[in-house]
């Protein structure tokens, strides 16, 4: 599988987060739930990375039936704004989906609801500007 060619993609919002050694408010981020997270690597956080993770993020409360995927699993994330794609591996738990149920982001006519994935700055900046903060994406496994 790869970019935009799996049978059951997920559509939602992506954002970015910092992890590993970092500056500023990110300085205390640490290596994430998997212990390997680094802002300069193409990695992501996924809301259903474990039981403990799921109990915090609760995407089901937003109507999102996300599959359990654990540390190291690879996703292909395609920006619905630019059409660009990046491959990332799970390195952390997040985003906190149920804190923002129903939130919606659009890019032209392409819209998506609910925060489903956070990318490291290096991965996010490969397909979108960090200053956008939120962006609609397609996620393939």
């Amino acid at each position, binding site marked *: 599988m790869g970019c935009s060619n799996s049978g059951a993609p997920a559509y939602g919002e992506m954002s970015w987060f910092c992890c590993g*050694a970092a*500056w500023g408010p990110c300085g205390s981020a640490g290596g994430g739930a998997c212990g390997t997270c*680094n802002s*300069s690597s*193409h990695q992501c956080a996924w809301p259903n990375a474990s039981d403990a993770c799921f109990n915090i993020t609760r995407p089901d409360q937003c109507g999102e039936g996300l599959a359990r995927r654990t540390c190291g699993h690879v996703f292909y994330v395609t920006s619905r704004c630019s059409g660009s794609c990046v491959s990332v591996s799970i390195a952390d738990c997040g985003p906190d989906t149920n804190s923002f149920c129903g939130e919606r982001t659009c890019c032209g006519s392409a819209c998506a609801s609910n925060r489903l994935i956070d990318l490291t700055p290096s991965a996010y900046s490969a397909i979108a500007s960090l200053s956008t903060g939120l962006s609609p994406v397609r996620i393939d496994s």
Partner: protein
Amino acid sequence: MPSTDRRRFLTSAVLGGSAVAGATALGSLAPETAFAAPRIDLEPGARDPNFAEGRITAISGSLLKVSGSDKALHRIYVTHGTSIWKLRPTTFDEIKVGDGLYARGVKMPDGALAADAVWVNIVNLDAAITAIDSGRLHLDHHGNKVVGHVVNGTTAAVYNHTPAISDLSGLQVGKHVKVIGAWRPDTNEVDIATVYAGI
């Protein structure tokens, strides 16, 4: 400008010695053009050679010397084609020693990075609002207190998918927000560019 042309432009700008320019002339291209490539071929989980982060230790002409958070040293060229963000799209002269940054660009043969885009002091905070007073949001960011300053003429709020507006009256204490802002170096304070909130 197509992505490949932009990369070629950045590379030639540095190799041709035209990277050094009048400071206020830099940062003129839209950042969106930097993300038009159809596919980034890099092993998932791998460190991205075309990306750098850290804090600026020196500025020499258009060259930024950066100490990475992992202690790696980076040399980053800013060219006429580099988009620069520091709270808002801005120009090279706003970049200061001590600032933090993320940069994306093209790795040069000598190991330096010719930057497509530089985001200076940018932060992305998932936080809860603990208090609101005149011109400030007090935030709890994973247990750490952060003060968010409202910047007149710049700070905007997005309530769900509404367009960004300057009216912050919809923000509420106790609610979760996402804040895109610019860190004030060596403090727990940020200037707010955009605050995303539910409705």
